């Protein structure tokens, strides 16, 4: 059930009407939201549900035990439960996400040494079919596991650090982990941001509805009218058969992919934030027009903000952060960026992507230790140009997916190489650039419009946007970030 499907619109409409019915207790509201969230998750694959429930149970239990141990001054016991939470969560995540990669790498290494093994085939002998991808036989990563694992971990770590009290009821904690607008592709919400919102009485306001609707529509347009069109008309065909296309078009496809992945992922965040607002929740922002950045460091402060801050707060700072000299900082930064790469996917390309980002940030620190400071009018556009193209071309590692495609993208074009892209691709590319670099007042204008316009007119507008998008849809695609 994706956000841009008819089924989801009906599901969400019914839930919103039910929640906006007067006279509901807090328990009923939480129960209704929890039930809907679990139903939403089960709609992807019900066999994934026990994993989610297991993670909820483990961290609720560990959180309570850590807190009790700290209250009693038993630091060692708190540490043991913290370790249990870390091993349990990261173990399951690694099991699904990295086992296949490690086992295949091991098999390849053994085969190269003349002792073939079949370690990669072993999980297939006992894992249920729902966890195995048919054609390749690889282990499937359950939808959203990277997101909810980080959410539950932040809960136990915050309790361990003494900055958070445990949830009062497992129902609240379960809702925090499984809240459906952000369950499968973020933003990664912290318990300290979410749980207090459950304590407040729900008072639906017109402004929630209006601004929620605005974000929802912006997200839908980004996803269906721009990201999907860029994917279908430009990026997917070229990456599927790079040598059939000219060099120029391959470069255009890279720009296209950079915009596609931003639009796709930020669309999901927009929709999640919008839906959350209609349901009475404030979810954190996840993007801040990242391609306007003038340094790689700034890019990571604007891109997938909730992941970057998570890694900063729980890994980079835990390792010592920027304290302890240049080498130690470089090490911490490299570990953090490789972790971000590995969080996205298990492959050498993702590791390389993380290393490349770390290297760029270290070079920036070396060239410009002040981090931006004052710069001449000429320097700023130059820095933007360099940063933008560094980000775009490092996207090649992400989209290629494997070494074969990567080499095909840089290989000589074949005979009759195509040098033209469909008009729809150019239109989507132009619109995506314009939307990303649109001047700031546009946001304030749209907020004002949605605050003032009569609701019936907003409903009318919604119907037209949905109708036009329904005609644009060329296929039903999932969000790119679902795979992480």
């Amino acid at each position, binding site marked *: 059930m994706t956000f841009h499907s008819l089924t989801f619109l009906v599901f969400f409409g019914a839930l919103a009407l039910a929640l906006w019915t007067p006279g509901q207790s807090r328990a009923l509201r939480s129960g209704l939201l929890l039930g809907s969230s679990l139903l939403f998750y089960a709609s992807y694959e019900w066999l994934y549900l026990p994993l989610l429930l297991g993670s909820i149970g483990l961290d609720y239990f560990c959180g309570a035990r850590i807190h009790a141990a700290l209250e009693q001054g038993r630091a060692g016991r708190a540490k043991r439960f913290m370790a249990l939470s870390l091993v349990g969560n990261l173990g399951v995540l690694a099991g699904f996400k990295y086992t296949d990669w490690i086992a295949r790498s091991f098999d390849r290494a053994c085969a190269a040494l003349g002792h073939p093994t079949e370690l990669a085939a072993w999980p297939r002998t006992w894992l249920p079919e729902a966890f195995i991808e048919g054609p390749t036989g690889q282990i499937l990563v359950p939808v959203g596991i990277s997101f909810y694992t980080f959410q539950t971990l932040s809960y136990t770590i915050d309790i361990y650090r003494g900055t958070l009290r445990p949830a009062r009821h497992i129902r609240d904690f379960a809702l925090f982990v499984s809240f459906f607008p952000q369950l499968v592709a973020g933003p990664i919400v912290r318990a300290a941001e979410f749980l207090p919102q459950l304590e407040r009485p729900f008072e639906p306001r017109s402004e929630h509805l209006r601004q929620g609707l605005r974000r929802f529509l912006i997200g839908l347009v980004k996803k269906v009218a721009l990201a999907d069109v860029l994917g279908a*008309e430009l990026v997917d065909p070229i990456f599927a058969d790079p040598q059939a296309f000219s060099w120029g078009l391959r470069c255009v496809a890279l720009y296209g992919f950079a915009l596609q992945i931003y639009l796709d992922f930020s669309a999901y965040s927009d929709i999640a934030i919008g839906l959350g607002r209609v349901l009475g929740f404030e979810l954190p922002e996840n993007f801040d027009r990242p391609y306007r950045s003038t340094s790689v460091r700034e890019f990571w402060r604007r891109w997938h903000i909730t992941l970057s801050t998570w890694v900063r707060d729980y890994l980079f700072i835990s390792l010592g952060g920027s304290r302890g000299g240049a080498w130690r900082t470089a090490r911490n930064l490299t570990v953090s960026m490789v972790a971000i790469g590995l969080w996205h996917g298990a492959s050498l390309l993702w590791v390389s992507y993380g290393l490349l980002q770390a290297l760029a940030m270290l070079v920036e620190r070396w060239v410009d230790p002040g981090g931006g400071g004052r710069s001449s009018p000429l320097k700023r556009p130059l820095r933007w140009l360099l940063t933008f193209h560094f980000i775009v071309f490092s996207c090649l590692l992400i989209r290629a997916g494997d070494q074969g495609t990567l080499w095909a993208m840089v290989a000589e074009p074949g005979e009759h190489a*195509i040098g033209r892209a469909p008009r729809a691709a150019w239109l989507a590319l132009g619109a995506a650039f314009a939307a990303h670099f649109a001047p700031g007042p546009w946001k304030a204008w749209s907020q004002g419009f949605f605050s003032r316009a009569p609701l019936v007119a907003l*409903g009318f507008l919604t*119907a037209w946007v949905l109708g036009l998008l329904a005609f644009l849809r060329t296929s039903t695609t999932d969000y790119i970030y679902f795979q992480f």
Partner: protein
Amino acid sequence: MSTRPDPKSPASRGVTRTSSRRELLTLVAGVLIGLVVFEWVLGGRTGPGLDSQGALLPHPTLGWENRPGFRVPERGTQLDRFGLRNPPTPDPLPADEFRVAVFGASRVYGAGVPRQDDLWNYRLQSGLAERLSQPVRVWNGGVNGYSALQAARRAHLLLSSLRPDWLVVVVSPRSQLMLDGSQAQGWKRVGPGENELIPRDLAARLPDALEPFGARGHHWLARHSVLYRRHRALEVVRGVRGADYEQWLFTGGDEAPEVAESLERTFAEFAALSRACDALDVQLRVFVLAEIAQDSEDGWQRYLEEHHAHGAPAPGTDRRAPNRALGAAFDELGIRVWDGFDLNESMGRARERYLLPQDYHWSRDGHEAFARELLARMLADDGWTFESAPRPGERAER
């Protein structure tokens, strides 16, 4: 002195909530009004849907078919008792007539042509009548939106009722014709007396008791809602003719398993039709039309470059290759082929004359050209006989 209500009191909160719910309902009302206007405006812009006039009926094995006896007098549309687009077919059929039946999709049906007697079948009938001493009957078996599989299956179903001397199925290399995405064999009989049909995929989502309502809702929406038709079209063709196959043309190369399976089903349908025709001594021909993109070299190369990403053949592919490949595939089945490449090319030299504006269906002149081509093919074909073959059981009537 008035007192301000305590904003924390339950009564005050109740008022807030009720008014908020009213706002939500106002928004929903706006959405509904917007949808109705959208349907009205877009319905007017995109023209009538496949079945806006109620000309189509669901069919358990064909997916859909023309409604027998359907008439729109102001447009001159009249379908006979079999749902064929020609003058009424008497029952019983006169025994001594020479009969030709041609099946296909919207081009054969004559989509967009306002006057029925401008269609190719009327021209062919008079052309044949000038050359034959016996009465002639030409049936138009075109149905909007059909695939080649559906056309062949419909021809097979009507074969014994029509008993034609010649049977022609018109196909073309593009995905709509060759990759069947229809609801053929995808219907379920529901309701009291099992007289309602509902697509199987919809039925699977409904409890048994709701299936008859689902069937009625589906048919009503399919007739009246452009959005619903769009939604269903995406649902039905997903996996068979997705975005990767929008511009696909048959070239006889290696295909993905689901495409290969779809082609296999289509050719199996033709093989079955061929066997049935042989048994009844009916001359079966497949007329392979070309696509609009094939009508000029420049257009063809541009098409290949722009649409290779969506399934079009690789740049550099010969313009005749799709027709040649399709011809070879039917040859393998032992079915004789008439290649319509040259007809398409000649129409391409004056598209404005032979094609409808903003459309790739034939104009009045296009139908005339197709009728001439069919007649020429029949006359040049060594299977041609001026007298209709005697039909078993009819010899005594003659």
